[in-house]
Structures are given as C-alpha cells and as structure tokens.
C-alpha cells in the first residue's frame, strides 16, 4: 500500500473530505479534535516531515493547514481543520509530538489568538513586549 492509501485507510474515521487538485498536492480535512491523532500517524508512523502550519481567519472560523511533506515522492499532504468557535478558538497542540512545531504554534497563537492546548511554552515569539494584548495582527476583524 502506498502512502496515500495508508492514510486513507488508517484515518478513515477522521477524514471529512479529500481533495487532489494537482499532482503532488493533497488537501484533506479532519475535525479539530482529531488533529493530534492525525499528526501522530503522519509524523511518527509514516515518517512524513512537518513543513509548516498556516492559519487564517475565514468567515466560517479559523482554518489551519498543517503541511506535511513526503520527501520520497515530493507530495505535500495538507491537513485542514476548521475551528468554528471564533470567540475563544482552541485546538490541541502538536508540539508534544515533536519539538519542530513549537515555534509555529506560538506564532499562530500570537497572530491569530488561537489557544494551543497542551503547548509547553506558549508565549510571544515575534511581537514586542509592549504589543497590546488582544490585538491579533492577522485577524481581519481587530
């Protein structure tokens, strides 16, 4: 079974939608509550490399894409989650799985105001100490 098939098989219960818009680009959605399990499977069991995560505010909520790279085939698997609660958005941190995610989760926290539950070091990364609390630069509605 190749990597794509293994993901579809093992994460069957988590996957909400699956999209392959171009060769080497796969986007699939999971529920926010399933991100830890999904990330663990992709990183620890399949050995995919975590490239980065990108968060953005949409009218429906906060969308985060976790980009994993399969270096053997050049395919990017991007896991999409949508956090619908815009008042106090939160999601499980994946930093406890591997330290490489620490900085980007801190950045998304300070730029978008998303709480990463279980993050060992959630404090400011880029913004200065005197940057006003509650002001999240990447939100459209600040």
């Amino acid at each position, binding site marked *: 079974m190749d990597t794509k098939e293994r993901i579809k098989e093992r994460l069957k219960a988590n996957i909400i939608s699956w999209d392959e818009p171009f060769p*080497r*680009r796969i986007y699939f959605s999971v529920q926010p509550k399933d991100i830890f399990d999904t990330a663990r499977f992709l990183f620890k069991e399949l050995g995919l*490399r975590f490239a980065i995560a990108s968060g953005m505010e949409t009218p429906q909520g906060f969308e985060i894409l976790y980009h994993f790279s399969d*270096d053997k085939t050049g395919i990017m698997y991007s896991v999409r989650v949508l956090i619908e609660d815009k008042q106090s958005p939160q999601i499980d941190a994946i930093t406890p799985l591997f330290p490489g995610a620490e900085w980007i989760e801190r950045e998304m926290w300070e730029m978008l105001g998303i709480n990463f539950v279980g993050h060992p070091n959630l404090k400011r*990364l*880029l913004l200065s100490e005197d940057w006003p609390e509650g002001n999240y630069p*990447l939100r459209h509605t600040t």
Partner: protein
Amino acid sequence: MSHKVIVPIGPYHPLQEEPEFFRLYVEGEKVVDIDIIIGYNHRGIEKLSESKHFDQVAFLVERICGICSSSHPYAYVLAVEDILGGEAKVVPERALYIRTVVDELQRIHSHLLWLGLAGHFIGYNTVWMWAWKYREPVLDMFEMITGNRNNYAMFKVGGVRRDIKDEDIPVLHKTLDELVPALNMFKGAVMDDPVIRARLKRVGVLTKEQAIEWCVLGPTARASGVDIDIRRDEPYGVCDRLDWKVIIEKDGDIFAKTVVRILEMYESLRMIRQCLDAMPRGPIDADIKDVPAGEGIGRVEAPRGECLHYIKTDGTNRPIRHKIRAPSFMNVASDKVAAVGGTISDATITLAAVDPCYCCTERVVVLKKADNQKVMNGWDLIKLSQEKTEQLRKALGDARGK
C-alpha cells in the same frame, strides 16, 4: 559547582548582521541551556502581502532576506503557478533555465558568504577576506544577468523579467572557470587543515534523530544524514534535467556542515554550466493576466533549506492569505539541542553553523536571569572561539599562519 553565568550574544554584534538575542546559560565552561529571542526583524510581510497585487508581492518578498534574495520570490511565484497548473505547464522553457541559473548562482554566493563568516568566528580572518573577495565575481555575474548585485527582481508569475544575452554567456563561463581554483583553495584549506578538523569535528553535533524531530532543513539536515533536497524531491526549474548530486554527510557536526556547503558549490557550478549550454531560444514570459481562485504551495531549495510559500486566492488580483516559511525558522530552533552540552568557546560557531538568516525567520533568544552574573559580551565570545583555535594549533604543532 553550580554557578550559573549568563552569556548574552547580541542583540548587536559587529559580525552578526541581524540582531538576535541568544541567551546562553552556562555552568563553568559548559552551556546548559539556551534561550532564543527573535522578533527584531518582524515587519509584518504576510499581512502586507494581502494588500498588494500579485506582481507587487514578488518585490515585497524579495526583501524578506537579502542573502536568499531569489529563493523567496521563486517560491512565491511557484505557489501562484501551482494554482495555474504548475510551473512546467505555465512557464516557457528558456525562463526555466534562467530561473535555475539565478537560483544556483545564489547558492554559491550564499555559501561563500557563510564560509567567510565562519572563518572569522574561528579566527581565520584570511578565509573571511578571501571568501568575500571571491564572492565579488559571483555578484558581478548577477549584475550582468539581472542588473543588480542583490535584489534581482527576476521572478514574475509566468516567467522571468530579463533575458541572458548571447554575448554574455562566454563571459559567464569564463568567470565560472576562474571560480574553480578559488573553490579548490577553500576545499583544501578547510578539509585538509588538521587544525580546522580538530576545531570543528564533534562540535555542535545534531544527530539524525534530532534533525528529524526538529524538522530541520537544508545543509543542516544533510550534514546529519537526512537525505532531503527539494531540487530532487519535488524538482523545479530544470533541476531534474541536469546532472548533479545531493551531498550528504553523516556526522552532524560543524565540520560536516562545512563540507556539505563547500561540495554543494561545486554541484551548483556544474548545474549553471549545463544550463548555459542547453538553454533553448524562445520567450521568457507567459504574460499571465489572471489568477483563478484556489490555493497553492511553492517550495524551493534555498541555500539554507526548503523555503515554502503558501498562497490562497479568491479570483481577485491579490492573495487573501500568504504564508511564508523560511528555512531558518526550523533550523534556528534546533540550536536548542545543538549548542547545549558544548563549551562557551564553541557557542558562536555552533550558532552560526545553521547559517541563520534571521531576517527570514526572526530568531529570538530569550535570556533567563541567573543568580551570580558574570556577563560576557559577544565580542569576548568570538575571542574565546578564536583563542581555542590558537590553542589547538599550538597543540598540533602547526607552525602555519592563518
């Protein structure tokens, strides 16, 4: 003895060109912990991107970092071309070759720059001067092709902005030929020098497991045995049509990182030569007018590692989200494990070994306050590093000068 000493490096040090704040916690001579504070170069580029149209964004992202000045615009246009169906489908042949030439020339200039700085940190000031002297012909080549030594303004969605003139090609070949003896000199000076081997081997080690856990990229990863290179894994430009190889070392120490960078320069030289010889005639720009709604990811192998841009569009002439991830964002975080356990005299070179491009990433080092404070500044730390080299040289009985 538990006498904690804070050794701040930064934020302003003459040879660390970008301000970052590293706090080293030491006990005696050994580094026990490190805080990294960044944020001194954060200019809000991702947000600015949302208010610029696609052509303007290319100019904006070029100024994320001066050293990998062509990697960011290349990754950005690849992300937009991803939405249009992919670089190979959209961009004319000749433009692909020109893109690869610019990308590989940049790798050579960046590695030479790093070599110079690294040489200075360990006390080989002549290496610094020679490396930067031989960078000048590379910058001359850039000026010939793009019109500028830095900030090339070459990449646009659908092609490149300037062509390489036929009469310039022999001049480029000649300059590349003249670069080879210089590279041979550096290779000999670094790889065969027993003092440098003693100074850099087993220093600042990042194991393969650590490299994977911290998701590091580029020469930092390849020096630890992690076999990743975007030019081979997801080829762009004409990388898959050229004859070149990925350089992998196993030890993960600073010597390995240096060797990877030096050998990569030879590979880049070969790639540029092949491009100049094989470049077909034809247009250099597909003249793209509209970008449909969608999302795309573009990645290139910058001198420091994988540079990734993610773009989301909605059919208008601006991106609605532009995520920029420079390679140093992942690499510098790994300093946490690479520098800890080493000595203070090795600290500067270890931190510099990932070739940090702070303006790309914004590395911040946070210092924790300790009890008994004997503070050393960055200048003292470099001196310590250079003194260690001197001691090693004496110990090895090497009477050669710098």
